[in-house]
């Protein structure tokens, strides 16, 4: 009986471990509102100068491609900037084993290089997500200076706060 109990416990732990990633990605499925979007400049002193701070500026719908797809989902993302520009992306969303990055595949252009919008996951809760993306010396996402961190005076940060609305 004791052996049986230990075997059941070991099997349960293994299954929980295997399903962790699946649960995290499953948690992203649903309808989200971009509650807040902040674009700012980070100085070498560590201060943040706000370039834009807007609320309720878009939405996002994430859906399953099929039930077993663990690291890729369908995404429909719409963002309205304060200057009237719109980022409207319908495509695939990828993440990693530990859910530290969210990748919007070909959200910026349609090529094999320099077109993915890569978000760093700052916070991931059931009903709230905070993601951020960056740039260097005034160039977003794929800057010319992409190797030497000391050869820059300021950096760009775009942080979005998403809240679930279903």
């Amino acid at each position, binding site marked *: 009986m004791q052996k049986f109990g230990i075997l059941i416990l070991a099997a349960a732990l293994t299954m929980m471990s295997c399903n962790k990633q699946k649960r995290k990605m499953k948690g992203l499925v649903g309808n989200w509102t971009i509650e807040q979007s902040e674009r700012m400049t980070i100085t070498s002193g560590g201060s943040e100068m706000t370039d834009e701070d807007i609320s309720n500026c878009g939405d996002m719908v994430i859906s399953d491609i099929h039930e077993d797809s663990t690291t890729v989902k369908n995404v429909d993302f719409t963002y309205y900037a304060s200057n009237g520009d719109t980022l409207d992306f319908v495509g695939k969303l990828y993440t990693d084993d530990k859910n530290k990055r969210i990748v919007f595949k070909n959200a910026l252009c349609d090529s094999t*290089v320099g077109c993915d919008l890569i978000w760093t996951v700052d916070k991931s809760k059931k009903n709230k997500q905070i993601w951020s993306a960056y740039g260097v010396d005034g160039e977003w996402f794929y800057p010319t200076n992409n*190797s030497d961190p*000391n050869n820059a005076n300021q950096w760009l940060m775009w942080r979005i706060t998403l809240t679930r609305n279903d």
Partner: protein
Amino acid sequence: MRKLYLGVTLLLTSLTAQAQFIQMKKTYTGSYYGFKSIDPAGLNKFVVGFNERYGGGMSEKFHQYKGGEFGQTFTTSGFRFIFGNGENKWTLSTDYAFGSGKDKNKAVFTNGVEQRMEVRYSSNFVTTTFGRTFKENKYWLEGMLTTNLSKMFIEYTTVYPNGQESFGSEYRLNGLYTANLKTMEFGVQATYKYKKYLLFARAFAPIFVMGPDEKERNFVDERNNNTKPTDFPSDYNSYVDNPASYVSDNGQLKSTNFKGISYGFGFIYLIGKEQ
């Protein structure tokens, strides 16, 4: 390998049929700490190249690796048999063990930016042991044959002066890199048994690399969308100055650098009634 398992199965079946011949058959579970010695040359080539290139603008440089940073904490479970007649008997076991360890490294620049490199190393050991028991089964000495399925990860991030950490595309090296290595290893194990508890020490040395294919032993980030190749470099200067050719020039980090001897100490609990 199939023939080996078939042989072991037939042996165990045969032994089970002769119950009086088997002194002990037990499932067990336990834990041990394994010291690991890798070849740090590949990682250090990256560290030295990076530090030399940007050293003038750095207030803290990446530390070099000594090779012993990747000790692993293992959990293990398996099956154990002791059989034979006479004072000294034979013992045989098969077990599975999972262990992981990591090392954190960082470079700090004078403009307030940091770059962090966390290297994680996990091993899956599938081990068969065979040896002799002594002093009424209190002491065991065994040889071991192990398949070690290893996975290595490098998390490379940039931390900005406001404290935000980024895996993003703005710095080409940011990313989550993975590599695999499968080795066959030979080892020895010495065990002391006290009632249902075992204290043991074991050591392994790799015999040969089983896989993956030589071209697939690089550290790769599948989601890095900068210009290819994006394999994690060993020769950092070549990575920056000749980005198109550093992989063909063999300037990338290889998972075979993580092959090395290991040794560990731990305890095991025999499940069920004492025999």
